[in-house]
């Protein structure tokens, strides 16, 4: 099957850049540097273009041009331009106004929701009832099933974990007796938490690696004229030449 030329070219570019990035695992080299700089530049450029065509033009420019009565749109534009005043030390003070407005607005809008979502709701989630009823069998029947008991154990473990981890960060109380024991238990919970987070992060990195391998395998197919294989060969050849030249 013949691929559209842009897909074919895209496959060669993607395979080449992936291999250039992987070459860092061997040693730092100019091919890695090229790919790294291209990545940073292309990401930023793409983000800028998307922001321009998805937000700035349809949400600001078009309404302003189509209906001149939308004069209020000039206010955010003016404030946005003031941000650039920070580039010069003499006019930097003008940049404080839009920043102050942004901070005030964001804090005002966010704080009530933040407290409700991240404090009240989660404290409520931490304190689970240990006695669970079975509503389908009448409100007086206590759930003593394995699942119910397991849920009770989880609820207790969560409560102990939260309390002891908080105790670990009580620096104003002398660490002796029960506070010391709670603090040590809290540290154990923290260690388990860090270990689990690290394990999950590694799993995520493996997924990224697998995704690159899948793409390299696809670009190594005859439809792409074996782009991955050809480019890997070229890259290895170039790295060998570079190394030989450095030794000479």
């Amino acid at each position, binding site marked *: 099957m013949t691929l559209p030329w842009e897909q074919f070219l895209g496959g060669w570019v993607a395979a080449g850049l992936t291999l250039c990035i992987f070459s860092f*695992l*061997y040693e730092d080299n100019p091919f890695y540097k090229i790919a790294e700089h291209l990545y940073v530049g292309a*990401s930023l450029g*793409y*983000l800028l273009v*998307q*922001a321009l065509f*998805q*937000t700035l033009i*349809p*949400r600001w420019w078009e309404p302003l041009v189509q209906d001149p009565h939308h004069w209020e749109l000039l206010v955010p534009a003016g404030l946005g331009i003031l941000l650039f005043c920070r580039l010069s030390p003499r006019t930097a003070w003008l940049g404080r106004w839009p920043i102050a407005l942004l901070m005030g607005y*964001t804090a005002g*809008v*966010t704080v009530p*929701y*933040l407290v*409700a*979502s*991240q404090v009240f*709701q*989660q404290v*409520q*989630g*931490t304190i689970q009832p240990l006695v669970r009823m079975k509503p389908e069998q009448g409100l007086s029947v206590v759930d003593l099933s394995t699942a119910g008991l397991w849920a009770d154990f989880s609820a207790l473990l*969560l409560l102990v974990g939260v309390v002891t981890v908080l105790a670990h960060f009580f620096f104003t109380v002398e660490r002796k007796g029960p506070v010391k024991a709670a603090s040590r238990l809290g540290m154990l919970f923290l260690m388990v*938490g860090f270990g*689990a*987070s690290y394990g*999950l*992060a*590694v*799993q*995520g990195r*493996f*997924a*990224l*690696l*697998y*995704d*690159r*391998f*899948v793409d390299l*395998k696809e670009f190594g197919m005859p439809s792409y004229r074996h782009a991955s294989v050809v480019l890997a060969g070229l890259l290895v050849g170039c790295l060998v030449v570079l190394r030989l030249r450095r030794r000479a």
Partner: protein
Amino acid sequence: MGRRRIFLLLALVMWLPMVHPFRFPGLSVTSSVQALHDRIENLPSGANILVSFDFNPGTKAELEPQARAILRHAFKRRLTVLVLGLWPDGWGMTQRIVRDCAATAKLPVKEGRDFILLGSQLGDLNVSLGLGQDIAAVFPRDARGIPLADIPPLRHIRTLKDMHLIVSLGAGEPGPVTWVMFAGDRYRIPMAAGTTSGNVSALQPYVQGGQLLGLVSGMKGAAEYEMLTKEDGSATRGMDSLTLGAFLLIGLVLLANVNDWRKGRS
């Protein structure tokens, strides 16, 4: 063992199942993935769900399989899917994923009828809050440039309150937490999320607090979802490589510790 040898070994171990897949047994479905699947399964045909793609190509390895599994399920259940993104640099990828899922769906799926690509906007909390008041004010036209008023399903969908479920697939902020705070909690709309493995621990408290009814975690979560929908997707195929990679890493950590212990004794 030198680090180059470890990299080479890891590459070989992860490449092997791609050539000879052998499917590790024992993948079980976690309750939070099951909950999301059950919610979508039990929604009536024609119900509205919003899927927010809050990631860019940097994390597509984990979030694309999740998105595909959820979209395929929603299309199969004949739900009306509204798609948007809070990360503008992921919008091109989002359109490709959604249209590809629609093109390969078992039932005929049509843009503008079964799914609507709203677009991508900067301004995280303003987008969520604005959608709660008027969707057409935030996204006046869809990705094809058609005014929302001319798209039949959107004549009945005015605000977020008309949604039966919001699913945010996110790798950070703005993402699931933004949606929980400014949409789920505010308007009492059922919410679920999909996230990367590294971000799961940050979202787990929201499941515990009942703010997220379901949470899909990384490629493993996507594989679990594929298992529930009985589809052989990219996440299921990737689990062999991930499992072997994890085994290799555990083996190397153990080996290094034993070696250290022996050196200490001698």
